[in-house]
């Protein structure tokens, strides 16, 4: 079975590639950008010589590159998305790139497609606190009121569903919560807003919808093999409250000062801030709106029952996952990841591990 992983050099992508190698995948193609850091993938290529690991270097904004990546592929794991940058950049690299991938999927008659989406696609701003969000909860109907990433992920998911209706591939959509693990243990925005050495804890009593990377990867791999078509939340059980998570972080990773703010006080601040943004005529970016606060810090819970019923068994408990991630980030032999552009040679049409 030939497999393509987009976003393969990213945090989740490289863990997925390793999982697939361990699972005995014979042909694995990784789509990476010209500036991707390939250190982790190169390490895996050396570590698992029985897997034929290929790199396709390109950009999914190019339909030609998408076609090139898709040749002979049976299963696609689409993880690539843009998380940073201006709204048009995030949208183009997430949605336009997805459209190109979908065109290539249709052209190459790919059998099975796994899209890694996000729990941010749900429209939860109007739902009461502690509402359990299942896969049947309605998707966001006002994406323009959300941040650039959520806006793009919502459109991306709709695009996949639209192509699925018109074509004959199997589609599994996974909606992970906050993915963390060794190498990514920074405080998520759902735990609070980080301002240098300070964290503003918003709604500290909310339970964080976490998913440990190994658990998440198990779900993603399963989606490529046997999960019935449909969408699945990927969140671990026994998630800690935001306050507990921050407390552990402070004791194991980094000494930071935390300030707790109630959701209502943050909402009031957000209303004032939105007014300031309007008065500033764009001088201050609209990073925090009341709608976004209701969506992100609304205290909703996310159900993983459907995924559990389909046979997903998390490998590690939340307590174990957090401990491993925090300890790894504090371990001197495993330096914390810093963003670093690594240049690679000019893209060859199809570079492989044998070349």
């Amino acid at each position, binding site marked *: 079975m030939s497999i393509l992983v987009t976003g393969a050099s990213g945090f989740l992508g490289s863990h997925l590639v390793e999982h697939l190698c361990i699972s005995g995948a014979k042909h694995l193609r990784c789509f990476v950008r010209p500036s991707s850091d390939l250190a982790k993938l190169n390490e895996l290529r050396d570590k698992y010589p029985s897997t034929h690991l290929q790199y396709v270097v390109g950009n999914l904004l190019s339909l030609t590159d998408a076609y090139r990546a898709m040749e002979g592929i049976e299963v696609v794991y689409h993880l690539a998305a843009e998380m940073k940058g*201006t709204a048009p950049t995030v*949208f183009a690299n997430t949605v336009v790139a997805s459209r190109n991938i979908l065109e290539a999927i249709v052209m190459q008659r790919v059998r099975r497609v796994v899209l890694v989406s996000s729990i941010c696609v749900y429209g939860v701003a109007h739902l009461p606190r502690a509402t359990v969000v299942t896969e049947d909860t309605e998707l966001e109907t006002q994406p323009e009121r959300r941040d650039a990433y959520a806006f793009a992920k919502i*459109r991306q998911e709709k695009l996949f569903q639209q192509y699925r209706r018109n074509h004959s591939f199997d589609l599994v959509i996974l909606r992970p919560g906050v993915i963390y693990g060794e190498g990514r243990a920074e405080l998520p925005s759902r735990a609070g807003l980080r301002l240098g050495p300070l964290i503003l804890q918003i709604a500290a009593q909310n339970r964080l919808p976490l998913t440990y990377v190994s658990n998440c990867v198990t779900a993603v791999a399963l989606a490529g093999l046997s999960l019935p078509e449909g969408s699945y939340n990927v969140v671990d059980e026994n998630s800690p409250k935001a306050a507990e998570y921050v407390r552990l972080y402070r004791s194991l990773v980094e000494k930071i000062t935390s300030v707790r703010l109630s959701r209502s006080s943050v909402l009031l601040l957000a209303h004032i801030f939105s007014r300031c943004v309007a008065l500033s005529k*764009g001088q201050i970016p609209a990073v925090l709106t009341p709608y976004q606060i209701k969506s992100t810090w609304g205290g909703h819970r996310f159900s993983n029952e459907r995924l559990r019923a389909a046979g997903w068994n998390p490998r590690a408990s939340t307590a174990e996952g957090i401990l491993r991630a925090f300890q790894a980030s504090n371990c001197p032999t495993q330096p914390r990841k810093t963003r670093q552009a690594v240049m690679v040679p000019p893209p060859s049409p199809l570079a492989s591990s044998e070349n």
Partner: protein
Amino acid sequence: MTLRVAIVGCGKAAENHVAEIKKLSNVSLIAACDSEPLMAEQFCLRHGVGASYTDFEQLLAEQRPDVVQIATPPQSHADLALTAIENGCHVMVEKPLAESSAVASEVIRYAERNGCKLTVGWTYYFDPVVRSMRERVARGTIGDPVHLDAFLAYDLQGRFGAAVLDDAAHWVHGLRGKLVQNNLDHLLSLVVDFVDHDSAVSNLSAWRATHSPYPDLVDELRLTLAGERICAQIAFSCRARPLGHFFTIVGSKSTLRLNLANQTLTEDSSSRLPGPLGRLACGLDQTRQLASQSFSNLARVIRSDFQALPGLGYLLSAFYRSVERDEDVPIPYAHILRVSTWIDHAVNGIRDAQAVSQ
């Protein structure tokens, strides 16, 4: 009268345009167009624009805009501008106006023949500190201009630079002068008011200092614009830090130094005090000027006049005023053409140097 405006090109540049258009009272953004339907769709949804198009001519036929703002890659600027003018629209085009001075000249002549106004996105030309500098030079504060120095540091790992490096098909790679051609307007538009009319590009050096997958992506440039009375040094660098945009104009009486990134303008002048007292006084005078600028900038923040691209709002406002009142356009066409010619020479110089090195 409310001017009906359409934007073509729904990427990063259009975000800057729409932010300023929304502030203008006599302007209504009625439609947006992008050859990529998803990009047009997202732009219209996020900015509440009523009509989304992928076909520019269809937009012109159905919406009949008064003004078209072109925020597409430079390769399409001229064709889109000519089409808009043909349909009787006034046109604001992102920089550079065209890929060559010959084409830029053709677009300008066509606009003039058809009675349409045209301007180019020289944001920094109308930056508040640049306008203030021009006023002081015009008042004779610095005496006669003697020398100019314009410097721009660019981040190849930044939002725009990273997109260029990550995409072998990015439109920047399709420009003859690549990154340099796309940025020279930011430097040359600062000097165009002061150099001699017959100034020509000389002493051009261009090289590649950053390791990237693109062997012909020049990321360092130095050139001189030499005239009879005055010279201008132009520098573009992707290695220099901090990222900044500086301009210095040396005069026969004093020197003005502009930091466009931080929005400061200071004047160096000779002290009347002797020896060490004079040197001390100059330092104190600089401190006073910077403190004064900081307070002025704080006042601008309070007035909501401290935007990331403060010159763009002024440019658009002045352009729309020229359209409404049928006045002169804010940037003289002769300036646009001179800059375009210098860019041609710089690009040709880079190409020649690359040909020799190969």
